[in-house]
């Protein structure tokens, strides 16, 4: 079974996959989908393809550290996605020597984030890290620009991974950083990058079929589908054999990274599955 694409709905399906011993490859973010906190082990029948919040936070913090930034403001939406990202930002801050001077929140249907940003401006952090999906991440960006805060670099989560968001921001996304999977930046990858071929092919196929810019999310589904297809080709239709094959998959080159599964790791990716990307001239650009 492939999907669902949201953490909440995936969590609702997980017990059924376990009960009926059917391999499930979810396309949603939270690590809890594949990890049973109570038993402290991976769920036997459940896998997932997207990177976790932890990897995104690690990628952002590693990058910030390299730039010599250690005073940050956290801005997050009060939905499951925002709360989970905020939790990881706060949990991992000491490991990377990050000092969080502001921790502001907004609702998923809020119309304006000027207030939260004004407060952040007063605390003068070296960078802002925002964790949200949907229209709020675009509105926050516009408010950030309107308030003349472009001297404080703005970091978005991997939830920003769609060119539509750059369009919607109407120029305010310029200079914004975010961690993205290789699929979003296939054209920019070096020719010897291991994912260059698969991501370029996917980009061409997607553009030919839908005639719109691709986003991260289709890539997660591609990874899930191809993993399952490979398993089916290799071991046939036996559920237990498919599960075992998935768990032992090594070096699978996907849209979002190179997957290496193990009995304890049903995600198969690490922080290197994220490239730090900056918005330049209305499009993604790699940062070194």
């Amino acid at each position: 079974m492939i999907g669902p694409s949201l953490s909440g709905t995936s969590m609702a399906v997980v017990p059924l996959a376990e009960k009926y011993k059917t391999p499930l490859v979810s396309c949603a973010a939270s690590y809890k989908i594949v990890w049973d906190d109570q038993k402290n082990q991976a769920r036997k029948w459940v896998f997932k393809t997207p990177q976790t919040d932890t990897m995104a936070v690690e990628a952002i913090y590693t990058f910030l550290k390299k730039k010599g930034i250690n005073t940050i403001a956290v801005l997050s939406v009060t939905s499951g996605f925002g709360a989970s990202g905020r939790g990881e930002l706060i949990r991992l801050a000491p490991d990377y020597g990050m000092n969080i001077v502001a921790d502001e929140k907004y609702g998923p249907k809020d119309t304006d984030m000027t207030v939260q940003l004004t407060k952040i401006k007063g605390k003068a952090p070296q960078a802002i890290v925002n964790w949200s999906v949907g229209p709020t991440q675009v509105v926050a960006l516009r408010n950030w620009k309107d308030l003349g805060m472009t001297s404080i670099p703005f970091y978005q989560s991997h939830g920003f991974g769609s060119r539509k968001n750059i369009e919607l921001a109407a120029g305010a996304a310029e200079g914004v950083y975010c961690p993205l999977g290789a699929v979003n930046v296939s054209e920019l990858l070096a020719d010897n990058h291991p994912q260059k071929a698969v991501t370029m092919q996917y980009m061409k196929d997607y553009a030919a079929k839908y005639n719109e810019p691709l986003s991260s999310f289709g890539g997660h589904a591609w990874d899930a589908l191809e993993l399952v297809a490979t398993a089916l080709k290799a071991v046939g239709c036996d559920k237990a054999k498919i599960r075992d094959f998935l768990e032992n998959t090594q070096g699978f080159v996907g849209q979002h990274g190179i997957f290496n599964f193990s009995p304890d790791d049903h995600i198969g990716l690490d922080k290197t599955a994220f490239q730090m990307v900056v918005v330049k001239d209305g499009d993604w650009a790699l940062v070194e």
Partner: protein
Amino acid sequence: MSGQIFQYLVTGITVGSVYAMVAVGFNIIYNVTEIINFAQGEFVMLGGLIMVFLHVSLGLPLILAFPATVVLVTMVGVLLDRLAINPIRQPTVLSLIIATIAASILIKGTAMFIWGKDPFDLPAFSGRDPITLLGAVIQPQYFWVIGFLVLVVIVLTFFFDRTIIGKAMSACADNPDAASLVGINVKKMVLLSFALSAAIGAVAGITVTPISLMEYDRGAMLAIKGFGAAVLGGLGSFPGAVIGGLILGAIESLGAGLISSGYKDAFALIVLLFVLFFKPSGIFGNIEISRIKRF
């Protein structure tokens, strides 16, 4: 610091103006029918999305797209009355309210099929270059939102105080039985009230979309905030709706800025509960009148 507080106030008043417009829409229908129209937020959403369609997708100039949008949303309001409210044979307050809830779900679902789940943007009416005033940064669109609230209030005041139709509507609000005795067609007034509040909802949606973007499921939250504003100001009172909306917006904004943004929505609700505790009819409400009403 004073610059910061001024910034919170300006943002709060702008957001509050949208709540106030929604609250005014609630009141118009409440006054004539004694029901709360739960599809009020859907009018705002439709206003924003239809405007995006006409102005951005079809390329109609702003000056044409604006009235066209208002007319289209008004027609949705008229249809809502004709198809959902008017045909109910033995109308009770409860059955009418349930009909509006069903209508809101239907409108939301239809909008999702037409526009999908993505948010849409509308260019700001007069550019996006912010203005700096007393240490606060103000988007030009803020003035449009606040300006249209003022315009709506002026037009409505004139309509209800100076025109025969407006007075007839007020009469229905005071006593529908007596109003029909003196020859006022109450059903027509109900239709008119739905048309009017749909139009005001559309104006709110059109003016706020350049600030907040708009997507199919934005209506419910705006309806809740607008309802809060209407109750805070006193259900049925127009000055109450405006003041209630502005207070709600300002409290949210100041609470988020000065205390904690995580509890933003809670501040507004606490103040609402507090006011209702001491003055159950709201700030401008009249307890005598609210006793006669069925809801």
